[in-house]
């Protein structure tokens, strides 16, 4: 069995989804943790310092390349699998079987598409200005100048439609994680029933806490909970 055969079999294709999915789950923890600095109530100093660290230190920059690779692999493989799986039943049923599974388990591609649309807009809001077109700078004293991404957030989240779209994306993320988190661990082969209970519990907790933390960020700016 070659490496290629392993990852192109029906089980192997799912392994690609699971490994990249778990990697993206880890990224979410880092992203949410770092962004939580906006609630330090210091006018964005701590947040801008943290963002500066992520943007200038070599390790996060290397991980960023891995992140982009992971996201693109997950997206492309996800769409390919969805199309392939749909093609396996040319004639559908008159009455569909919907009681045996959760709607969000059957709708991962739709939830993923909402997330993809979100990513494009999210990158345009923050990643593109920070990396390419440039943003306003902030002097933290002693010649320590950082990008004022905090001000970009304040500015972006003044628009109610943007806030609403971010919240919808966070809800989609929650449902995507509610299925994806536990499914990824099953795909990589965790079959101990006690671990299943543990993973399901952690997965549901994760699917609520992380998207909630993300959703509270635009809401906090819009409602001026942070200044």
């Amino acid at each position: 069995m070659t490496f290629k055969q392993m990852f192109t079999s029906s089980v192997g294709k799912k392994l690609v989804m699971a490994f990249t999915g778990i990697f993206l789950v880890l990224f979410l923890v880092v992203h949410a943790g770092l962004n939580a600095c906006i609630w330090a109530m210091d006018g964005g100093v701590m947040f801008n310092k943290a963002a500066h660290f992520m943007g200038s230190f070599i390790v996060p920059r290397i991980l960023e390349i891995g992140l982009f690779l992971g996201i693109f692999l997950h997206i492309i493989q996800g769409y390919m699998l969805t199309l392939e799986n749909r093609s396996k039943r040319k004639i559908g049923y008159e009455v569909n079987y919907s009681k045996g599974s959760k709607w969000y388990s059957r709708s991962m591609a739709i939830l993923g598409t909402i997330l993809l649309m979100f990513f494009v807009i999210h990158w345009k809001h923050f990643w593109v200005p920070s990396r390419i077109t440039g943003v306003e700078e902030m002097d933290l004293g002693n010649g320590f100048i950082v990008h004022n991404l905090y001000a970009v957030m304040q500015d972006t989240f003044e628009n109610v439609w943007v806030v609403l779209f971010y919240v919808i994306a966070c809800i989609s993320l929650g449902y995507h994680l509610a299925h994806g988190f536990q499914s990824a661990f099953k795909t990589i082969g965790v079959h101990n029933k006690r671990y299943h209970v543990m993973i399901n519990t952690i997965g549901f907790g994760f699917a609520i806490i992380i998207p909630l933390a993300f959703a509270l960020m635009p809401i906090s700016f819009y409602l001026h909970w942070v200044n």
Partner: protein
Amino acid sequence: MSQNTMNLKVKVWRQRNAKAQGAFVTYDVAGISDEMSFLEMMDILNERLITEGGDPVAFDHDCREGICGMCSMYINGKPHGPWQANTTCQLHMRAFKDGETIVIEPWRANSFPIVKDLTVDRSAFDRIIQAGGYISVNTGNAIDGNSLPIEKQKADDAFAAAMCIGCGACVAACKNSSAMLFLSAKVSHLALLPQGAPERKSRVLKMVAQMDKEGFGSCTNTGACEATCPKEISIANIARLNNEYLGASLSAQ
């Protein structure tokens, strides 16, 4: 206990042969006792069709006691009908109400082509078993069963997996037409026992390869298969299969 009789409408998929265009036909079925089995109701319909000079509805059935895995109807949007942990042959008419329209469809999957009406060709499952779902045993006297110690939990898990009757309800229920619950049951019951150990790695690789060749979809762990399985095969078997596959891929020569 008094019997209730009911009058029903049966909307059934009719298809003359594998290549013909199929369509639903609705029949009135009168005077059905609620103590009848579902297949007895189908028999009554077929007898009437034969008497009238028509073509009876073709459907698979054999033991009619829930153990052979031949019956295969998709009834009112669920494989094997509305009851849990049940085969079509063990479904009784008391599951339905007087005047109800029952929609009966064949298993739908490219890998299970329709032969006629509700009968589908499930030989893809046989070929998956032929690819590795067996143990090679030398001829000679059978060894004493007690000389092969097996942990109780493993024996129980292996038996639970071996309950799979290969009916194909998992494929019919899955939105991806995936055969993973069937395959995982077959791989699990041999992987858990010492008799299955010598061919353990090559078995899982060959059976997955054959499953892919037969054109079944990938598993997305939605759980529809487990919910409809007449033998309540656990989806944990699929995770075990994934584990077996990953391990065998990395270590088999």
